[in-house]
């Protein structure tokens, strides 16, 4: 399915080093040349340009400005950038501070201190553009496309500020510079032509506004333009297919494919070109642009709508918009395809014929800008590169669309990635907390292109993957606790979440400090937490995370991801990778693949990565023979860029020494913490704090429970269970009219019920012959001096015993039955029964217990 090109992209420096530092052995460069090997195209990005940087999610690249490029001593190519935050990168609770709607094109000048501005050059995807605007300024509607971003405010992690004039002018300067790159062929184009309607914005390079709409038409249609390229890069990483040589040909023919997407890609190419111009369309065309956009999707003959646009007034956009959306939904898809083809062919012709005539815009709008562009950049290597990208994608799409039917509008059973570029991606994203707002906003802004595709989605068989299974709702509401005892029982249930965790303040503080410091430093680390079951390890860690999340929301800490993996809830240790990856990015892949992706994610310097806090519960179950799961888990935090904090929880204190290889244990480090079993005072406090003024227990009763449990295991769960059982017993008694408070007697009964050995009781209630059999065993043991006997020997004793008591002795078959019955209870340990009388038996209870139980009557 994924036949995207796997071309290598080569990053090389542009020009000679500007300066070099001998001490640090770094040399700085002016620009970077990105060469795609397969398409043999080059793309040059210079300092000061704005770039898209690969993010964690392929469809959400980051925006940044290139500030510096250098090569360090180890020949690694680095770039220093100034980040721009997208609105989705701002914590949801902070978005309110803006008090305005933010369009998806808006970015914020990032002044958050936590992000690393030094990135590897390989993460740069391509250049883009960012335009500074004043706050009160309307976002230029013509910019209603994703390729061009604009910036109004800065964001420093706490509040939004307007851009200082200094920054503003710098950014503006940078934009100008972007157009003046010597390498790009459009350098001769005059800059700074301010459009009549938009004062502050830099206008399109072309003096006229006419060509713009068409290019915008294309651009605006694709919501995912930004993402698609990133996606494409991403898929390169992941791809398993190879690019076939036919791809290019197909592009030129532009054979019917899933057209909207092709269009997206097409416009993407144009977009990129466009960025160099630093163009902003004036207001007037923006209205027309919209219309054109729809027509593009409607795929009516390309020329017609444009002429229409010309004539139409600009101000009736809303109604038209409406209308177009409607018609859009009705329009068949086939038509689109064919017309698309026509259009594309058209364009091709034009590119040839109109070479060098870009000023001649009297023909159709469709052709002019394109031809202009093509002519202008004929020499430039860019076009070729972008086309190649387009090629690859398109070819891909073609394949996919040929498999899925054209008419069923793309939501056929195997929802390929293709679709994910625009629609289903959003769907999947919705499930992820990080990106939700963005996707929803996007879709709302950009509906027309997507709506028709989205509708059939619910019925597709793909849904099971993302389906949220649910236990049916109950028909009747739950009863509220009616009495004090019921209330108490509710509070004492282990699942009830207490307001605070008493008696674990120290541990809490330690863990909190550990994670907090790592968060602030932006580094990674491991911590190993041990303790017997029921000592509140997981509860404390969860509480820490809750507090940290709270703090992050209040901006006291940088934001972080929180993931949890439980060894017991995995069927296989390697499934841990799958779970982590799914929680992190929402992808569902196989274990081996997930391991590769995660390693890639954590080992490469990811720009603007949030810290990840991973809680690994029941660590000992992640043990494998090669221990590679554990090794990886503890190796990632040591990587420089991973920003991964691991809290590993297990029962045994010396787990690292006992089961881990040296290399694993060494990576785990020495940050250990051990949870001691609760003392009776702590247990008492836990119960009291849970009860919290519900007067259901006598003080002494609580103390008895806590002392008893502390002496046995110190397991808080046990303690709560006993209390709960005691309330039940109390309730049962109080039905006879006793007062409703749990007393010592109730607690004692509950404790007895839970802790008394069942053996004695079982022996007492055994039948006479069973008892005799046990007696006979004891006698035989005493006679032989060995704690093992055959049934035959025991049988002789039993017959003798029965004779003494004057009752008929059992037959051999009966004795065998008795023996197997006692074996089933595990009072006896019995061999497999094939040996008949030679069967060896052994007591599973201590002899004293048996004696005690037998003597009593």
């Amino acid at each position, binding site marked *: 399915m994924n036949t995207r090109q796997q071309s290598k992209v080569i990053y090389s420096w542009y020009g000679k080093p500007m300066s070099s530092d001998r001490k640090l052995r770094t040399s700085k460069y002016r620009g970077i040349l990105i060469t795609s090997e397969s398409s043999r195209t080059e793309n040059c990005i210079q300092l000061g340009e704005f770039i898209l940087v690969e993010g964690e999610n392929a469809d959400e690249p980051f925006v940044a400005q290139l500030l510096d490029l250098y090569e360090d001593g180890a020949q690694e190519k680095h770039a220093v950038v100034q980040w721009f935050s997208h609105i989705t990168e701002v914590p949801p609770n902070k978005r309110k501070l803006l008090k305005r709607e933010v369009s998806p094109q808006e970015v914020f000048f990032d002044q958050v201190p936590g992000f690393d501005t030094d990135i590897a050059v390989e993460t740069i995807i391509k250049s883009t553009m960012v335009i500074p605007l004043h706050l009160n300024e309307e976002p230029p509607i013509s910019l209603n496309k994703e390729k061009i971003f604009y910036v109004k405010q800065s964001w420093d992690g706490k509040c939004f500020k307007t851009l200082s004039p200094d920054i503003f002018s710098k950014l503006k300067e940078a934009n100008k510079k972007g157009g003046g790159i010597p390498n790009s062929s459009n350098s001769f184009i005059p800059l700074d032509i301010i459009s009549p309607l938009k004062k502050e914005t830099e206008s399109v390079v072309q003096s006229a506004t006419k060509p713009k709409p068409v290019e915008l038409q294309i651009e605006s249609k694709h919501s995912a333009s930004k993402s698609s390229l990133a996606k494409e890069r991403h898929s390169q990483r992941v791809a398993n297919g190879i690019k076939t040589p036919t791809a290019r040909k197909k592009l030129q023919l532009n054979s019917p494919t899933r057209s909207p997407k092709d269009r997206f890609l097409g416009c993407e190419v144009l977009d990129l070109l466009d960025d160099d111009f630093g163009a902003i369309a004036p207001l007037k065309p923006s209205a027309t642009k919209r219309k054109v956009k729809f027509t593009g999707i409607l795929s009516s003959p390309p020329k017609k709508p444009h002429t229409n646009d010309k004539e139409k007034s600009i101000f009736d956009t809303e109604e038209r918009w409406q209308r177009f959306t409607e018609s859009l939904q009705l329009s068949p898809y086939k038509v689109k395809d064919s017309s698309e083809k026509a259009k594309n062919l058209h364009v091709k012709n034009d590119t040839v014929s109109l070479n060098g005539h870009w000023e001649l815009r009297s023909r159709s709008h469709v052709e002019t800008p394109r031809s202009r562009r093509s002519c202008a950049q004929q020499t430039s290597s860019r076009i070729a590169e972008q086309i190649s990208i387009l090629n690859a994608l398109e070819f891909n799409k073609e394949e996919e669309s040929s498999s899925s039917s054209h008419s069923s509008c793309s939501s056929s059973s195997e929802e390929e990635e293709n679709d994910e570029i625009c629609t289903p991606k959003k769907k999947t994203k919705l499930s992820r907390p990080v990106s939700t707002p963005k996707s929803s906003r996007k879709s709302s802004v950009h509906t027309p292109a997507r709506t028709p595709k989205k509708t059939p989605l619910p019925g597709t*068989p793909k*849904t099971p993957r993302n*389906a*949220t*299974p*649910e*236990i*049916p709702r*109950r*028909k*009747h509401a*739950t009863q509220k606790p009616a009495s004090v005892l*019921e209330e108490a*029982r*509710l509070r004492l*249930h*282990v*699942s009830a*979440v207490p307001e605070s965790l008493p008696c674990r303040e120290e541990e809490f503080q330690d863990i909190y400090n550990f994670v907090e410091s790592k968060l602030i430093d932006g580094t990674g680390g491991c911590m190993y937490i041990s303790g*017997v*079951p029921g000592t509140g390890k997981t509860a404390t860690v969860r509480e820490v995370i809750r507090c940290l999340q709270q703090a992050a929301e209040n901006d006291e800490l940088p934001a972080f991801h929180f993931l949890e993996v439980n060894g*017991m*809830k*995995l*069927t296989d240790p390697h*499934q841990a990778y799958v779970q982590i990856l799914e929680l992190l990015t929402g992808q569902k892949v196989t274990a081996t693949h997930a391991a590769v992706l995660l390693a890639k994610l954590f080992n490469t310097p990811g720009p603007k990565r949030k810290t990840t806090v991973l809680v690994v519960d029941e660590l000992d*179950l992640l043990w494998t023979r090669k221990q590679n799961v554990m090794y990886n888990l503890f190796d990632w935090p040591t990587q420089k860029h991973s920003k991964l904090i691991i809290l590993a929880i297990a029962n045994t204190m010396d787990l690292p020494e006992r089961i881990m290889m040296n290399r694993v244990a060494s990576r785990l480090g020495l940050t250990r913490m051990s949870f001691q079993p609760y003392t009776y005072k702590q247990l008492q406090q836990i119960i009291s704090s849970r009860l919290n003024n519900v007067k259901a227990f006598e003080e002494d009763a609580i103390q008895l429970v806590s002392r008893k449990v502390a002496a046995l295991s110190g*397991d808080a*769960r*046990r303690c709560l*269970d006993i209390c*709960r*059982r005691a309330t*039940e017993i109390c309730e049962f008694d109080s039905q006879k009219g006793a007062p409703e408070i749990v007393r010592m007697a109730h607690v004692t009964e509950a404790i007895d019920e*839970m*802790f008394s050995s*069942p053996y004695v*009781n079982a022996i*007492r*209630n*055994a*039948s*006479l*012959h069973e008892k005799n059999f046990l007696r006979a065993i004891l006698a035989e043991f005493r006679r032989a001096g060995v704690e093992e006997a055959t049934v035959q020997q025991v049988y002789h004793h039993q*017959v003798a015993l029965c004779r003494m008591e004057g009752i*008929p002795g059992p*037959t*051999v*078959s*009966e004795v065998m*039955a008795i023996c197997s*019955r006692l074996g*089933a*209870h*595990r*009072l006896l340990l019995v061999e497999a029964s094939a*040996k*008949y*009388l*030679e069967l060896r038996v052994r007591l599973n209870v201590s002899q004293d217990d048996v004696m005690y139980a037998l003597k009593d009557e």
Partner: protein
Amino acid sequence: MSKRKVKESGGANGECISQVQKVLRERFCHHYATGKLFGIEHQYRHLLDLLKRTTVHGESNSALIIGSRGSGKTALLNHVLKELKEMKQVRENLLEVRLNGLLQTNDKVALKEITRQLNLENVVGDKVFGSFAENLAFLLEALRKGNRTSSCPVLFILDEFDLFVHHKNQTLLYNLFDISQSAQTPVTVIGLTCRQDILELLEKRVKSRFSHRQIYLMNSFDFKQYIRIFKEQLALPAEFPDESFAQKWNNNVQHLSEDKTVQDVLQNLFHYTKDLRSLHLLLMLAVSNVTVHHPLITASDLHEASKQYRVDSRANIVHEFQKFVQRKAHCMYNFEKPVVMKAFEHLIQLELVRPIERPNIRAQREYLLMKLLLDNTQIMDALQAYPNCPVDVKQWAASSLSWL
């Protein structure tokens, strides 16, 4: 003192007899909610309260019902469920999942079964079940979605609980108990087992999550109660169509329970085992003797039944094949070698004797070390029951077996 009251009424009586057979057989063979419970009122209350709280308050719980085979674990649970389901509020609010350790032999199978019984697969249409890992994640996700107040409580019944313990990592038990201890969909996990040491088999983490509610069924009744149970089990119900016959039958049963031979028979059985299933078997054998010409059950019937019931199988076999032993004894002077070998092989086949080592090719059959799998008393019994046993065999038995 047999009460042979041959009735000479034809069809009506025959009708009665078949009715009696039907009623009693149902009682003895279906151990489920139809029969009565004896001596476990307390446990009944406990379990009933537990399940009621789950359904009504949405409280998660876990419990184990431990008792020997035939002590009425399943019967208890079924009784409780039957009573609970009479409450409308409960009936509509309870999802039941029954698993059996003998059927769900690993967690993968168990998960599929749970998903099927919860009808979760309907939620996702015609989903083909994916891998084990996916299934687990799917089910856990489903259960996590719920919460105490709004989700329908789920009752998990794990029959042969001890077999679930042997599953890898006890993943299923851990997860079930973990859910029961956390604020997710309310679940109650009831395990049924006959092993008294079940708690020691649980892994420490699983054990910690288990609530330690154990309901023991001990058959803790004495002989008087046993007689009463016997009476109640045999008595015909009040709604029996032919009232006069029922009256007669019940009187007869009353008499029987006071009869000395019957009491002896019961006493023997009681000493042998207290579980009610064996009583049922005994009564079943007795009741099957009831015919039109023999309408009421008698003490001799019971006696016969008990004899039949307590027959020593090996002794029987010995009886049948004692002649081979006899031949063997004679072989020194009478029989030829192939005959003896044939007899010897026959004994091996019947597992009356068994080679100590595995028979291997090198050792000759004549020199194999053998082990006699019978007790001397059994041989003596068999010889005595064998009327025309040759004298020398008897002598051999008397001389060589008595000193053992």
